[in-house]
């Protein structure tokens, strides 16, 4: 049969097997056509396979960056009976991969599919910081005068490390499932190069993707994603340099504007805020039927969470020395704590899985 059997719109009871079968059905049509070979590595990778099992489908799904070039170029989209919609089915397979491979699965399922956990976690942490740890709502005393460095470290170290441990095990499961072998430096190098330039969103020739402008090409999503990714990395660099300052040099926060933590943090924060806002806007313009519809709302929440992390950080900096400083400190810390927990259990997982897929693709290419 070469007709679609799955309804992907919001049905949460679809099994992994059904998703893989539907993806295999569609990809086998693509493999007989191959017109889309020039768009991205997923289609070039597909030509390697004569048959498609769950492992191969997962690999191709995580290579796909949802640029949608293949959908708008496809002769077999609905109403054609072949009902090809590769961006949607692969987005669903990816989301299923994140849920299946990262434990505990109940937490992954809850956070991949529902908005409530994010709201509850943020509220919970606001309560923890304000009442549990006694940070005042209104005070110009921010940071270590409001909350001691040791308390901060004691709270955030496990919040940061534990989710990463679960993420690590999840990635190991994924790596085994796609048949990955021992990583070599050049695999990682190839993956870094691809991710650093977001080559998979280039449309193959730099013309961009077909995301918010549908049949027309645009590089807006590639740029927005780069702003988000590099903004995030700069924020991470800010925290890392501050840690080195604190423990290696004994220099305590707050730092001046021209210190590395501030330069990284403020630049990264602005980039992250602008990038996530742009991503959310582009998503609102794009056709939801070409993504993972059952997780659509949660994807907004995740982008929103990143936006709030950076924006509240900037606000904290802007209001430092005023009575609102500690208010923004509470809010900022609550969003960061929620974000840390969300890393393996939200859309954030995509970055790690995709990086793994790029490494695996580099292995398969050699």
């Amino acid at each position, binding site marked *: 049969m070469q007709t679609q059997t799955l309804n992907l719109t919001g049905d949460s009871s679809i099994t992994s097997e059904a998703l893989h079968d539907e993806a295999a059905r569609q990809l086998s049509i693509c493999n007989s056509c*191959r*017109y889309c070979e*020039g768009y991205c590595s997923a289609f070039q990778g597909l030509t390697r396979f004569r048959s498609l099992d769950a492992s191969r489908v997962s690999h191709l799904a995580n290579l796909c960056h949802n640029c949608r*070039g293949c959908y*708008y*170029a496809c002769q077999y989209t609905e109403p054609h009976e072949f009902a090809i919609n590769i961006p949607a089915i692969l987005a669903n397979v990816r989301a299923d991969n994140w849920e299946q491979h990262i434990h505990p699965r109940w937490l992954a399922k809850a956070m991949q599919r529902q908005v409530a956990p994010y709201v509850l976690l943020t509220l919970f942490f606001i309560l923890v910081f304000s009442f549990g740890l006694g940070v005042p709502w209104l005070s110009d005393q921010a940071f270590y005068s409001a909350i001691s460095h040791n308390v901060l470290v004691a709270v955030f170290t496990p919040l940061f490390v534990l989710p990463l441990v679960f993420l690590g095990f999840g990635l190991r499961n994924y790596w085994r499932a796609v048949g990955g072998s021992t990583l070599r430096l050049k695999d990682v190098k190839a993956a870094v190069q691809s991710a650093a330039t977001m080559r998979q969103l280039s449309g193959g020739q730099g013309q961009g993707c077909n995301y918010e402008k549908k*049949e027309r090409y645009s590089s807006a999503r590639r740029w927005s994603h780069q702003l988000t990714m590099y903004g995030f990395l700069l924020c991470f660099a800010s925290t890392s340099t501050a840690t080195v300052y604190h423990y290696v040099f004994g220099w305590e926060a707050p730092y001046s504007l021209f210190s590395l933590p501030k330069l990284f943090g403020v630049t990264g924060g602005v980039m992250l805020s602008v990038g996530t806002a742009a991503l959310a806007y582009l998503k609102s313009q794009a056709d939801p039927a070409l993504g993972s519809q059952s997780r659509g709302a949660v994807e907004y929440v995740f982008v929103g969470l990143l936006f709030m992390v950076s924006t509240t950080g900037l606000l904290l900096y802007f209001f430092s020395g005023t009575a609102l400083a500690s208010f923004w400190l509470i809010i900022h810390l609550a969003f960061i704590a929620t974000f840390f927990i969300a890393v393996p259990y939200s859309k954030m997982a995509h970055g790690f899985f995709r990086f793994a897929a790029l490494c695996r693709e580099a292995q398969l290419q050699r």
Partner: protein
Amino acid sequence: MVSPVTSIAYDRNLMTPGVGDVIADVLVVGGGNAALCAAISAAQAGARVCLLERSPKTYRGGNSRHVRNFRCAHTGDLGVLSGDYELDEFYDDLVRVTKGNTDEAMAKSVINDSAECYDWMIEQGVLFQPALSGTLSLSRTNAFFLGGGKALVNTYYQRCEDLGVDIHYNATVLDVHIEDGFADGVLVDFDGQQTYVRAKALVFASGGYESNKEWLARHWGDKAINFLIRGTPYNRGEVLKCLLDSGADSIGDPTQCHAVAIDGRAPEYDGGIVTRLDCVPFSVVLNADGQRFYDEGEDVWPKRYAIWGRLVAAQPNQIGYCIIDSQSKDLFMPSVFPADEANTLSELFGTLGLPVDEALETVEQFNDACRPGTFQSNDLDGLSTEGLSPEKTNWARPIVKPPFYGYVLKPGVTFTYLGVNVDANSRVSFNEKRSENVWAAGEIVAGNILGEGYLAGFGMTIGTVFSRKAGQQAGAYANTNA
């Protein structure tokens, strides 16, 4: 499901020549590659252009949705094309496939203009890619569209929108009013609303009649019911018929269509490229009586798939059964539908609905006629049968290693040859006189150059070259007859 398209009834009294609004300087009938190139060229010449596409937006583009490349002459590297493909070599290729059934002057002019088209296409925003995997033999001669024909069509529609072309979908031309080769206007069904519209110049790029099974049946009889149509269900040839009825001179064999052998499980319409089946050279092909009927290994498949359309059409029920064993399973491009599979030949023949005893005997005779030798899938290996009729002259290897696989073959119609006669500027002639304001382009004029046979990517060359001329000339005509 892609359903067959049916004719729309209309009232001839709605035709009011000489009366009514002129909706455009240039009216383009059709919505595929040629129509779009004509519309863009006319708009670039400064004309107000209206384009009527019969299909809904999702199916816009006619058979151009399914194309993948453009055959192009060039000296030295040209974009994605490497090396040289000189005019003479191009023309020789054309003469070979058409067996000389072409118009030399017109063919040479198209070939000559093809290189310039490549640059023009780039200017319109068309993106090319190197030859796809599995088509490397075309990397020197054919420029592939990134994403294929639908991406090309999308680019051209965007270009039309940017140039202000007035585009209508679900707009079916029902009748034309042309007297002594002068067109006044056409009766159009705009999504159910029938209106007579006029224009100063008309370009017809509305395709052939291959998806009109009643018309095919006039020449092929009941067999036509079993034909699969590889492309759009909207090419019903009704506009072509109107033109011929209005006195346009016809060209091309009215009884012939270009048909290839494709996967018999393909949809009746619009299966496109994926329905090809490349396993014939490594198989034995049986008809519904369990008998072989032609040399499966006569030549490499790209040189033979076109004749197999007719071969299968001549068999009972217009069907063929392609049988291979596990040794040959991975020697060809993956098929879109999985093969029927069985551990014994008799079980496989049962599944396929073949007369088991006859089919077994045929394969047994074939196996006995195979000789030892070296099997080479990529070349003519000369491994032929001995004392069999018909012989298999290459890749004759006994079908013995289970599991066994069976594919169904049916004739897949690509296009029809009948069209209207045009001059080198794509202007239509009526009763052997050049029309003042009617041009035609695309499949509807392909018969001026392709008397028979086909050359991969040449339909797009003809379509692009002629339609640009048609558009430019129609635009210029409209400008000077304000």
